[in-house]
């Protein structure tokens, strides 16, 4: 039986011959095999020998003829062996079908004799680089082809399939935030509510030729020819580097197309091309994102972001690897640049090098300085540039905080590449023109519906004042609690989401004057000396910050919010629950201190402990509020986090005081209105120290209150006191 097992395939093959194909049971088999055979060409795997009988013949004829010529000479008597077959071949095979095997473009370039091999330590070195230095001086060498002459390559169907496959892979990696390709930069906030939402992710490497080629091919597939011409790689610029054009010829031909250069950074692309790439990739990726909150945007980084990544978290160091030197203890160079005069190769790379070369920095990012300079935006001045230095710059220019020598250059250069960042798209963007008094955004129908829903929920909460947001002050066991009869105070600070519903509702109702007073000025984040650029975009608008206290608003805005809340609630109030509620306003000093002290205990803080740490057995040693522990110490160090929040914490963090109010001290300072009408704030913010968050601390802002990123508010509800008779009855 062993023989049978081995020959089962052969036996089956022979059994096929013995079948009776006229029998109806074999009809399906006949149909399948004949159709499969005769519709597709060259489907069969060759078992022995090759299918290319014809080509074999031609080769044989050539060989035999050459053989006959060379050895026997031109002897007519020698008959070619395959003559008979050749005739039949020519008769039946159409000329179009003869396959001409295309050999890959190969050209061998040898360096001049002057050149020494890379590893040798001979004395000849200088001549190697002579042409490059000359070329910098001559401007006549510049070759710019006009746009009309650009050759647009045509893709074969195989290329199209391959490209689709590669595109899918790239997008899949992006959606997963694949850790081998992208590194997440959590610049500051490490809070449970926004875990998994990095401020931005950045490509670990510079963008490679391979990734850029996917983009270019996709443009061709979708027949976006004009954008292809703008985004293409300008390979001819390599020639400018050298006076001798043959020297740089291979780079021109191969760099952007040959598979050997796939892992090299893409260069010679215009600024427009880089931006086109970002736009293309965002649109492609967001097609397959289902959750709207997770829509992402890919863009060129800002200068601050780039510096933050390069210095691995705002460390004071000239180079990404720390220290003042460009070589490590073993004497190896740590980046690809121009280390020694007249010697580009000392660091192991002549021009650019593979994107995964050298050691990564602490954030796991490769080649952030050197290799190619990376495009950045300067959002403050509106300029463009490229930071980090390139293979052509000396050690002074690859420092992190070095002067940007590529400032204002948008043309393609062989020293400029780019490294995109990934951020989450915010929900809505405000573009308010103060001159025209118009809001340029228009809320979509979905957003209006969502806002109305949120508003209705808020109103229903307000109708049951006691249960949810507000607490009656008289519940506190204060000695003279009758003073506060009918006064309700909010448990938490007002959150972003509540304030957002208010703002959107103003837009929906077209109350623009009030809107301009109430809108938060997020650019105030820039007034602080912290890496704060992301907050400008995200703090108010992104849904991750929904339950954080609202900041950067004026006192008038806060009062407007209270007014609006009461108006809208009374519209919905059918059972006249709120008929006694006179107004919602900012608390005065007496009310605020009374609420903070709660039990009237003898402690400088809202809690019973005299220090700032919890003394209960279970939570001993944990911080009781969000404040600044020491100079420059906003949250402690990893493993020993004091208050676990470097800027603002969510509204319901830490322990409430005995009265049930959260974050009376710390987090954000709360606006109050003094009896003489001045505005001020109490309680201290996240950047106040332990002295400043005491209840009785002096309010320095009295009369001079300005909106800022440390100031929020909470409201107080004022009831018309009930008559004494009704109380007795109860």
């Amino acid at each position: 039986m062993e023989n049978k097992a081995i020959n089962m395939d052969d036996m089956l093959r022979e059994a096929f011959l013995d079948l009776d194909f006229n029998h109806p049971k074999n009809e399906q088999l006949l149909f399948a095999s004949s159709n499969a055979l005769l519709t597709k060409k060259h489907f069969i795997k060759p078992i022995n020998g090759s299918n290319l009988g014809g080509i074999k013949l031609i080769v044989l004829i050539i060989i035999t003829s050459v053989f006959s010529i060379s050895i026997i000479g031109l002897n007519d008597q020698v008959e070619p062996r395959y003559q008979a077959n050749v005739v039949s071949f020519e008769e039946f095979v159409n000329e179009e079908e003869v396959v001409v095997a295309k050999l890959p473009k190969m050209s061998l370039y040898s360096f001049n004799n002057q050149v020494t091999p890379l590893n040798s330590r001979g004395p000849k070195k200088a001549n190697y680089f002579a042409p490059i230095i000359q070329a910098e001086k001559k401007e006549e060498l510049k070759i710019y082809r006009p746009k009309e002459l650009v050759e647009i390559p045509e893709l074969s169907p195989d290329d199209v399939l391959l490209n689709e496959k590669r595109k899918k892979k790239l997008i899949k990696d992006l959606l997963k935030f694949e850790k081998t390709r992208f590194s997440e930069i959590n610049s500051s906030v490490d809070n449970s509510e926004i875990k998994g939402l990095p401020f931005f992710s950045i490509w670990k490497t510079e963008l490679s030729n391979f990734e850029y080629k996917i983009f270019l091919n996709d443009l061709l597939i979708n027949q976006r020819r004009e954008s292809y011409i703008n985004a293409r790689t300008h390979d001819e610029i390599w020639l400018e580097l050298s006076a001798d054009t043959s020297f740089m010829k291979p780079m021109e031909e191969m760099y952007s197309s040959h598979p050997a250069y796939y892992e090299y950074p893409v260069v010679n692309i215009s600024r427009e091309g880089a931006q086109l790439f970002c736009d293309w990739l965002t649109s492609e990726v967001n097609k397959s994102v289902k959750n709207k909150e997770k829509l992402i945007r890919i863009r060129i980084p800002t200068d601050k972001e780039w510096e933050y990544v390069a210095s691995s978290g705002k460390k004071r160091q000239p180079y990404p690897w720390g220290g003042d030197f460009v070589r490590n203890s073993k004497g190896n160079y740590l980046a690809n640049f121009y280390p020694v005069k007249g010697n580009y190769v000392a660091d192991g790379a002549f021009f650019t090098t593979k994107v995964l070369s050298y050691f990564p920095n602490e954030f796991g990012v490769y080649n952030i300085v050197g290799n190619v300079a990376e495009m950045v935006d300067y959002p403050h001045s509106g300029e463009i540039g490229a930071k980090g230095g390139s293979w052509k710059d000396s050690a002074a220019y690859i420092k992190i905080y070095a002067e940007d020598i590529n400032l204002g250059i948008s043309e393609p250069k062989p020293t400029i590449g780019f490294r995109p960042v990934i951020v989450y798209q915010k929900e809505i963007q405000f573009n308010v023109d103060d001159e025209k008094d118009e809001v340029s955004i228009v809320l979509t129908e979905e957003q209006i519906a969502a806002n109305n829903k949120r508003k209705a929920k808020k109103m229903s909460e307000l109708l049951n004042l006691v249960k949810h947001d507000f607490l009656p002050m008289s519940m506190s066991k204060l000695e003279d609690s009758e003073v506060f009869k009918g006064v309700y105070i909010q448990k938490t600070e007002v959150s972003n989401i509540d304030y957002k519903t208010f703002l959107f509702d103003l837009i929906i109702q077209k109350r623009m004057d009030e809107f301009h007073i109430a809108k938060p000025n997020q650019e105030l984040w820039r007034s602080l000396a912290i890496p704060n650029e992301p907050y400008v975009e995200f703090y108010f608008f992104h849904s991750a910050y929904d339950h954080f206290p609202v900041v950067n608003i004026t006192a008038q805005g806060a009062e407007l919010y209270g007014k609006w809340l009461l108006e809208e609630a009374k519209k919905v109030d059918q059972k006249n629950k709120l008929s006694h509620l006179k107004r919602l306003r900012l608390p005065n000093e007496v009310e605020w201190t009374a609420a903070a002290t709660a039990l009237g205990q003898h402690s400088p803080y809202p809690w019973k402990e005299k220090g700032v740490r919890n003394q209960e057995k279970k939570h001993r040693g944990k911080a009781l509020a969000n404040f600044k522990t020491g100079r420059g110490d906003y949250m402690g160090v990893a493993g020993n986090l004091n208050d676990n929040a470097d800027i603002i914490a969510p509204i319901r963090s830490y322990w409430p005081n005995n009265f049930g109010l959260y974050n009376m001290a710390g987090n954000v300072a709360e606006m109050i209105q003094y009896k003489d009408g001045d505005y001020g704030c109490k309680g201290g913010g996240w950047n106040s120290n332990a002295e400043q968050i005491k209840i009785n601390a002096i309010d320095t802002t009295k009369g001079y209150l300005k909106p800022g990123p440390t100031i929020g508010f909470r409201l107080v509800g004022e009831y018309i006191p009930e008559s004494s008779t009704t109380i007795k009855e109860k």
Partner: protein
Amino acid sequence: MTLDLKKIIEQTDEERVKQLFKVYGQQLFAYANSNWKVGEDASWDIVYKTIYKLSKVINTHHFEVEQQLKSFLFKMLINYLKNYLRDERTKKGGHQEVDLNDNIPSSAETKNVNPAIGKLNKALDELEEWQRILLLMRAQGFSYSEIAKYTDKPVKHLKVYYGRLKKQLEKKIMLNEKIEVHGK
């Protein structure tokens, strides 16, 4: 390339042969040459024979769809192949000695030269249709993805089925042998 059936029937013999050769010749040649290990010259011969035969016979048959023509052509090719292979075998093995006393062998007996194949055919008959298609087509070098079109099974399943079915066949053949022995 596809054929216009109407055109072909109206054409002269020479044109028809050329046309048929253009469309089907290469595949038929490849099938005979690579799959059945027939030499190049011989396989070209077989292809010519089938095509000439078809062009002669084409008017006597009625084809509505191109598929009918294809299966007819394929059937003829297999017949020619069968004849060729049988002749080869007899050449190699030399002349067969036949007892004159015995009866002349009927056509059914000459069919199965190898008795093992007869058993295999019996075992094959017990299988389902898609299983037979899978086994027989795969043995001839058709790809799984090609076979999947005619069997309504996913490609990955077919790979597994193929291995299992072969083992099943072996077991069945063994069983049949035992039954024969015990039956006697």
